[in-house]
């Protein structure tokens, strides 16, 4: 399946920008969504020069319902059809839950959960009608076990993985592909934004991946309509172990890992 036009949220940096680049390389036109107009316009220019694709720049803050509705309308627009939606925008907060600012926790749920559900709904309804398309939701290895001091983040990712896997089953035989991508530690600004750079730098090197192979695995997965894609052997091993381990034990491992995640 080759995609003609993809919406990528959180396209200004990290995994989202890499999605835009690799899709452009395959000749897919883009709708680039993020808060920063400058970064999106720069990326749009780069992709046009390098790959000759057209990019729409759509400045939006997906923690805001009005902005989410605007992107949902764009996804449902039959005049300029979108056949792939990459729900990538998201962030994490680190710290003792009761000491974190609750407004920021709620924005995290708004962006990581609510926007994903709204945009997936616009995509699913439109694409099922057309009998083709793809929905690729970027979750995280954090979906596979509770994470103390990342409690809300891990919960939002548990949501995205469960939701997307269920949607994959529901949309079988509709022609619409649905994939959840569960990256582990990826070399992006994520850790910095979450205030966890010190801990991140202590992690062993094999756990780290560049955005390139993470995104390549995601795109391969959505083309083949794989329900779940875990990029990298170290992450696959972790996910398999977590899947086959009773939750009482994964929770305690998570508890043990407090020494790495505690502020």
């Amino acid at each position, binding site marked *: 399946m080759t995609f003609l036009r993809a919406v990528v949220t959180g396209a200004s940096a990290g995994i989202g920008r890499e999605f835009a680049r690799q899709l452009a390389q395959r000749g897919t036109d883009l709708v680039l969504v993020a808060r920063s107009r400058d970064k999106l316009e720069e990326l749009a220019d780069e992709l046009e020069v390098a790959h000759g694709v057209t990019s729409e720049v759509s400045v939006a803050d997906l923690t805001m319902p009005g902005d989410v509705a605007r992107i949902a309308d764009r996804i449902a627009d039959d005049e300029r059809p979108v056949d792939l939606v990459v729900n990538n925008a998201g962030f994490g907060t680190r710290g003792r839950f*009761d000491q974190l600012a609750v407004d920021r926790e709620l924005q995290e749920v708004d962006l990581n*959960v609510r926007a994903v559900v709204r945009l997936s709904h616009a995509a699913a309804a439109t694409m099922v009608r057309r009998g083709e398309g793809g929905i690729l939701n970027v979750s995280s290895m954090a979906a596979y076990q*509770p994470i103390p*001091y*990342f409690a809300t983040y891990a919960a939002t990712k548990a949501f995205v993985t469960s939701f997307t896997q*269920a949607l994959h089953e529901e949309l079988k035989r509709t022609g619409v592909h649905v994939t959840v991508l569960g990256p582990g530690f990826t070399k992006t600004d994520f850790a910095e934004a979450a205030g966890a750079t010190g801990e991140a730098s202590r992690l062993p090197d094999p756990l780290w991946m560049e955005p390139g192979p993470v995104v390549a695995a995601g795109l391969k997965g959505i083309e083949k309509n794989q329900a779940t894609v875990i990029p990298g052997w170290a992450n696959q091993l972790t996910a398999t172990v977590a899947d086959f381990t009773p939750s*009482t034990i994964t929770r305690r491992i998570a508890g043990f890992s407090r020494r790495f995640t505690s502020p």
Partner: protein
Amino acid sequence: MSFERALVTGASAGIGRAIAVELAGRGTDLVAVARRQELLEELADEVPVDVEVLPADLASEEGLSRVEERLRGGDAPIDLLVNNAGASDMGRFAKLDVDRAELQIELNCVAAVRLTHAALPGMRARRRGAVLFTSSTASFQPLPALAVYGATKAFLTSFGQALHEELKSTGVTSTVLCPGFTDTDFVGDAIPEQILMDVEPVARAAVDAAEKGRAQVTTGIGNKVHAAAAAVLPGGALGKLAGKALGIG
């Protein structure tokens, strides 16, 4: 630890009401939260303890703020928060009303996060308290036809367990209740009677687990088997089975 005063959301019916009655039977005073005041009044008349009736719609900003305020202050501190109110909507996600999907996120996740955040500082300061989350065995695998509901419960199970670890040695605990299909209005006639569990034993197990400060409690033998299967089978495998069972996927 037995509790002095518990705030229970969704206390007007189903598991929430049963938990309120169970707590009252153990001498715990109540703050009963739900939308319908008359049902809360009925509960208050029925139980032998002091009950504050606090009608509130937890999907509204106004309702949530009022309950947050009660958790933060008041002369009688809350030492047990039961995050039980929830909603579900069954059907193919693509065809469901997206506002109903969002309501599930509001009630099942956002309200629980906000109320817990309001309750914890006081509990930690007093070094005494507990939070109980009504999650579901739906959190153990993706659920086609209940895609958003299952995901909200996966959220709660992850969140409640992470908090359990964060709260170690603070005097405060977090417990996740994972009932399977329970005989309440919530499931309606959708589920065959044979696999439904009565609500009273679910409530008893929930309060026992909260008193002991356990991380998670799964009620019913069938559900324990389910939890064990979920623990040793890849998530996708159970999701496929669930889809087949529900005739979707």
